[in-house]
């Protein structure tokens, strides 16, 4: 019997105990709900259940994100042995509601005033791979993860697959980088695997910084072991013995959960020396970002991990042959790693069967802005924006009219409402003048002023420029000043032309992706909403101006 089977049977024994409960009461303990005191709610449930002597019948469990953050704090009651009551979801729960909910549960009834029906598209239309355990397992309990087939893929890879087989499987799955660029993950892995050198590194980029994006935070808070397992498999595939998770310090809860997960994984010998009785050694350390958006760029990220100023450097050389401390390094995003274990477990063909021809699998999106169901969703690649915004997202609130959808963070752009039937995949979004990005999706309704939206993103790029190259350092400052001048109604066409030539310069001559993409917010809004710009110009005439060159 291998060591993994031991781990598994221990986890299953734990799970066996759980099956004796009548109901499992899950309280969301991810950041959005915690910010509304779901931690006190969980404590109140613990106390209430115990006080009534129901702790043999009801299991209270802290779990990760259930997705519908707008309705938080969320509490889910699932039948385990007792089937009288079906799965029930409670929304906007407060500490005061706790006795009533426990009362009702004891009498096998539902508190109707708090119930959120689950037969809505938000829950039914999602396909969950990355989020399969989110909201179900306890993120602070490794046994919960193992009992949900966790670390099985890693163990299988270690004992029955060669590193080359693992790379082949990931390549065959068609997985592409979920950080935004969409670079084929298998190709990246094989490049690092082939790079010469005994010392190699694996880095997980968890420096999520796009405004309105919270996918990676949620994955780390809800299912941290899934990310660690993906990194372990990657390390085995490329021959690395050391890994780093670079996570921004603004995510304290995610960092706590990661730390707990690392400790547990080490204790179970899933990390460290001779992992699972094989010859494979691998360890992971956490590095905290110090609040610089540009550190999400891989060369800046590596400089920061090395303890230097987080500034990008020109590529090539790419991290795959000259990365951390000059060694070959694999850098992938949280969500990319989170797909890996499931791909190995269910097979590349299964994964490649989901999504479109060129974009395989699913994508997690954070819905924010003017939308009914603010929260986290996972959908197959290729679904249309309409399905995301109207069916899953529930449309704009108070029936305002949809104006645009901003994707890809400050590097992305605004997709106008008339492209609502656009399928969401890497190529289609680029064609529409935006970018997949890491998954932030900001819904903009007709109450928004698009010049102001562009100004917001320009301000962001200006403040986050590292200052190393001249076009981005000085160019973004002038671009912000010019769009601010337009927004204040003090600019003329000459200012707009100057702004456009700056956009051209900065996009083509900046050193890294931050600078190169910084004009996107202006260019994408100007293309479709030029009349809003015109209306603010001193010499502008609404709708009469020809398109910009």
């Amino acid at each position, binding site marked *: 019997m291998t060591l993994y089977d031991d781990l598994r049977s221990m986890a299953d024994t734990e799970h066996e105990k759980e099956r004796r409960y009548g109901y499992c009461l899950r309280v969301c303990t991810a950041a959005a709900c915690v910010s509304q005191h779901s931690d006190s709610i969980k404590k109140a449930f613990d106390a209430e259940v115990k006080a009534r002597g129901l702790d043999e019948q009801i299991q209270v469990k802290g779990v990760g994100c259930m997705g519908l953050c707008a309705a938080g704090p969320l509490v889910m009651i699932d039948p385990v042995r007792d089937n009288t009551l079906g799965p029930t979801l409670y929304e906007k729960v407060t500490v005061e509601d706790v006795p009533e909910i426990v009362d009702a549960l004891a009498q096998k009834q539902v508190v109707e005033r708090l119930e959120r029906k689950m037969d809505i598209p938000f829950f039914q239309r999602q396909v969950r791979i990355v989020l399969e355990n989110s909201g179900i397992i306890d993120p602070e309990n490794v046994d919960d993860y193992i009992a949900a087939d966790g670390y099985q893929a890693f163990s299988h890879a270690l004992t029955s697959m060669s590193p080359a087989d693992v790379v082949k499987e990931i390549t065959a799955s068609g997985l592409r980088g979920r950080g935004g660029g969409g670079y084929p993950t298998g190709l990246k892995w094989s490049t690092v695997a082939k790079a010469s050198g005994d010392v190699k590194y694996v880095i997980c980029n968890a420096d999520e910084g796009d405004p309105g994006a919270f996918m990676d935070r949620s994955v780390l808070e809800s299912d941290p072991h899934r990310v660690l397992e993906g990194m372990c498999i990657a390390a085995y595939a490329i021959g690395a013995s050391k890994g780093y998770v670079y996570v921004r310090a603004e995510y304290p809860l995610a960092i706590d959960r990661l730390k707990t997960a690392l400790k547990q994984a080490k204790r179970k010998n899933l990390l460290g020396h001779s992992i699972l009785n094989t010859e494979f050694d691998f360890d992971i350390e956490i590095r905290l970002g110090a609040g610089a958006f540009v550190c999400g760029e891989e060369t800046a990220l590596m400089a920061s991990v090395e303890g230097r100023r987080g500034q990008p*450097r020109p590529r090539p050389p790419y991290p795959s042959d000259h990365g951390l401390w000059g060694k070959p390094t694999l850098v992938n995003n949280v969500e990319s790693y989170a797909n890996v274990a499931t791909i190995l477990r269910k097979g590349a063909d299964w994964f490649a069967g989901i999504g479109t021809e060129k974009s395989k699998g699913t994508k997690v999106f954070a819905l924010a802005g003017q939308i009914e169901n603010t929260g986290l969703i996972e959908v197959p690649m290729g679904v249309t924006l309409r399905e995301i915004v109207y069916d899953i997202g529930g449309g704009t609130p108070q029936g305002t009219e949809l104006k645009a959808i901003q994707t890809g963070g400050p590097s992305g752009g605004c997709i106008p409402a008339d492209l609502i039937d656009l399928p969401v995949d890497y190529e289609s979004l680029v064609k529409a003048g935006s970018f997949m990005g890491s998954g932030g999706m900001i819904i903009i309704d007709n109450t928004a002023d698009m010049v102001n939206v562009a100004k917001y993103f320009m301000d962001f790029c200006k403040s986050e420029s590292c200052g190393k190259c001249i076009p981005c350092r000085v160019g973004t400052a002038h671009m912000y000043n010019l769009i601010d001048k337009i927004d204040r109604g003090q600019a003329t066409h000459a200012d707009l032309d100057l702004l456009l030539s700056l956009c051209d310069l900065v996009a083509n001559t900046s050193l890294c992706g931050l600078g190169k993409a910084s004009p996107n917010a202006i260019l994408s809004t100007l293309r479709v909403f030029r009349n809003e710009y015109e209306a603010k110009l001193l010499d502008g005439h609404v709708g009469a101006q020809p398109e910009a060159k």
Partner: protein
Amino acid sequence: MTAPTRSHIKTLKIDGKDYSGHEEETILDIARQNDLFLPTLCQIDGLSVAGACRLCLVEVKTWNNRLVPACTTHVEEGIEVLTHSERIDNYRRMILELLFSEGNHVCAVCVSNGNCELQALAQKLGMDHVRFPNLRPVRVVDMTHDRFVLDRNRCVLCARCVRVCDEIEGAHTWDITGRGIDARIISDLDTPWGSSDTCTRCGKCVNIYPVGALVEKGSAIGEMVKHHDFLEYIAEMREARE
């Protein structure tokens, strides 16, 4: 005897003409060997490359007309490089405009007037006006050192000083703090230069700095020493004539 497996020498085209280079060499190396002019500011022979000023950007036709910095891009077989075109020249002039609009680059009141790489580049590339209002970020002048002055308002953030101090002198007195338009050069942990424990007073940073941000004390003041003796002399001679 083993047969050679691959060549380290690459042939490439620059502005339509054929050149050859070793794979370790950059496009800038080849251009300089052959007296082809490429503007540079952050690059200086002897220090590591930064790729920061973007003035040496060249267009590589064979890479979808992508612009790459000549100082960091190694030669590759068969690439076709363009060092000048209307587009590139415009970009270069505009980058200079941005620099001039960033701080105090008024030549008439600068100690480096006539000995300034930024001024020379502007003349050479024909940047004769600046379309942007001056940003004037608040930048502190450090005169605490007994021999040198740092005027951050004249700094172009080429980081030559940071690199020479770290790579050649081995002191690493200089570094950069802040970001974007607020980025600035600091000595040690942002303490006055004059009280620096690490500065060896070698003056290397001052000597390789392209503009008038780092200067020797007295280079401005020295020229301003008043010579009064002429008056005494003239007065004496006039008196003698009377």
